[in-house]
């Protein structure tokens, strides 16, 4: 029996509040979808409607006709997926050490990780640009991936450290008592319990890289390398003037990969977030 029994009206209120919150969250996306399917004349209507009166795919046709969206999406996908995989591969062992080995050094490292999140982009971009230039990584997706990994690493590390701490050390000690080696413990005991956290962290790194604009704008110089967020700004003019229909269509398509990835693994993320919540 639940410890939190609510009355009918209270439950109805909870659902109403939840619904209102969901509507609030979904509003920009739904408006984007609606705009993407509206003909030009409806975009300028004084009384806009949620459902386009005369829905059209013209905005999508124009968007693909005017900009190389597929190529840009491919570049984004490569950069985001690679950055997510590398970030997780690098952050996982580091997080394990930070969580399991308590010392002044690890405390200082954790503090630095948190502080490093406070640096603004603009402060970092010029030194980063010079470093990448010396490495001959300007205008390469590899250079962009390296930046994304470095950029997402602190938060990934911070997230994963929390997940590692949620895995009881007693389980590892019990496995050690049963004769398992360090690697066996990591692979067979800690790994599976950590999997939801790793997936959640990878998702975070993926979405961060997928949506990132400024580094991609500055580091990629040729059209063939540009990522989706950079190409989306080609629908914008000076002082915020926009080619609204094609922009909405392209932006709608740009949100789909994140939504799909999130939908596929959201159950694992929920599991990961709750892992260790009850001891």
């Amino acid at each position, binding site marked *: 029996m639940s410890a939190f029994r609510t009355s009918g009206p209270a439950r109805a209120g909870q659902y109403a509040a939840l619904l209102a919150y969901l509507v609030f969250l979904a509003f920009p996306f739904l408006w984007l979808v609606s705009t993407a399917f509206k003909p*030009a*004349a409806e*975009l*300028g*209507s*004084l*009384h*806009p409607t949620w459902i386009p009166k005369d829905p059209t795919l013209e905005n999508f046709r*124009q968007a693909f006709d*005017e900009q190389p969206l597929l190529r840009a999406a491919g570049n984004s996908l490569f950069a985001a997926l*690679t950055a997510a995989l*590398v970030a997780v*591969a*690098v952050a996982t*062992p580091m997080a394990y050490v930070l969580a399991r080995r308590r010392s002044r050094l690890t405390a200082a490292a954790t503090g630095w990780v948190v502080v490093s999140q406070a640096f603004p982009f*603009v402060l970092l*971009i*010029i030194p980063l*640009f*010079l470093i990448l*230039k010396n*490495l*001959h*990584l*300007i*205008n*390469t*997706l*590899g*250079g962009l*991936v*390296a930046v994304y990994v470095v950029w997402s690493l602190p938060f990934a590390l911070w997230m994963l450290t929390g997940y590692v701490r949620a895995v009881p050390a007693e389980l590892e000690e019990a496995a050690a008592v049963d004769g398992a080696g*360090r*690697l066996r413990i*990591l692979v067979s005991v800690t790994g599976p319990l950590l999997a939801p956290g790793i997936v959640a962290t990878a998702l975070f790194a993926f979405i961060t890289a997928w949506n990132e*604009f*400024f580094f991609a*704008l*500055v580091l990629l*110089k*040729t*059209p063939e*390398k540009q990522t989706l967020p*950079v190409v989306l*700004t*080609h*629908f*914008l*003019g*000076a*002082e*915020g*003037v*926009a*080619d*609204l229909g094609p922009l909405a269509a392209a932006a709608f398509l740009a949100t789909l990969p994140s939504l799909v990835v999130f939908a596929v693994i959201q159950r694992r993320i929920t599991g990961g977030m709750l892992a260790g919540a009850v001891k």
Partner: protein
Amino acid sequence: MRRLTTLAGAVAAVLVLLLAGCTAGGTGGERGADGVVRLRFLSLAWQKESVDANRELVAEWNAAHPRVQVDYVQGSWDSVHDQLLTSFEGGEAPDLIHDASDDLADFAYGGYLADLRPLLSERLRADIPAHSWRTTTFGDGIHGVPFLQEPRMIMANRKILVEAGVRIPTPEKPWSWEEFRSVARDLTARMGRGRYAVAWPLKEPVSVSLNLGLSAGGRLFHREADGKVTLRFEDGDAVVPGTIRAMVDTDRTASRATLGSGGSDTLPGFFGGKYAMVPLGFSYRQQIVQQAPKGFDWMVLPPPAGAGGLAQGVSPQTLSIAEESPHKKEAAAFLDFLLQPQATVRLALGDWMLPTSTTALADPVLHTPRFGWATGAAVARQLRPAPAQSVRGYPEWKDKVATPAFQEYYSGAIGDEELRRRLVEDGNRVLARYQRD
């Protein structure tokens, strides 16, 4: 543990290989092994017709000049300043740079942009009026070619104006600011409740107030004999802000709701007959053509005039050459090709703007009454550099002092005296910091 180390090493090796595999050379402004010079042209053209025109011209150049090839790169107005700054600092700037003249001061004074005086052809120098060259002159050098410009015009609902029987202004006989206010009162009275003669989109109140202020004789920025700039708020400076404030606050002929809006935000109300007139940049005509409902009858009117006639300030679009480019002569030759009169007309039509080139501006295609081209072309002759064009410290004055002051003034929160005090006293303190010897 050894296997863990091996695993970490493998991951690192994969990472290095991945980075190496993705590496590509080829920066702009370099001569390849085949002796061909490759120039990188960062263009901010964004409307389809404009991008097409740029690409076609680049293709024509490349076909005619196999030894000097231009790579067209479409940039973005969003963050272009930071993008360029990073590229300049990193030594990876494009050879040819498209920007707006009001964004060039920092780059020009920073030594990032080449002085074009020894590079430009006499034809190009002579074809662009001196006042346009002033928008790209910083110190002793010219650091960009001003090639397209955009006056602020009044987009009007022809049906409402004709039915009201008001005098339709022309570039030869524009409205005075007082007449504009009077016409707005007539129109609002006829249009009925909830409708307004004018919607002022004042998301960027400083450029509107200063640039249109020239028509009333406003200057605000005064260069003294010692070369330093000071702010003075004189009678001419008060006309445009005073008129807008009175229309919103006293006459109720301008919508208060649009004060915080951008130009695009006012278009639905314009199409729906809620506003009879909207002062907008000339290029907004493209959005009106695209989005207006069938049968919507509109026209382009010149802005009101005062002691300064139809003068107004503009910050033209510019083309510059990076100082670090090793092939400035080739880049200048391309600029000369791109900005031939006929080519400039194509660029102007693509951007729905007006050329600075005298020859291009005289082209009959820009004098058709269709979509207000003729009205715009007539106003173009009166365009002048934006008042604060090359004043160091202007961006800070604009962001920290003028924008909040104008926003509060137009909303009615502060009065004339407080506006004057803030713009001048606070403003001069900002400018003084930039003008210390």
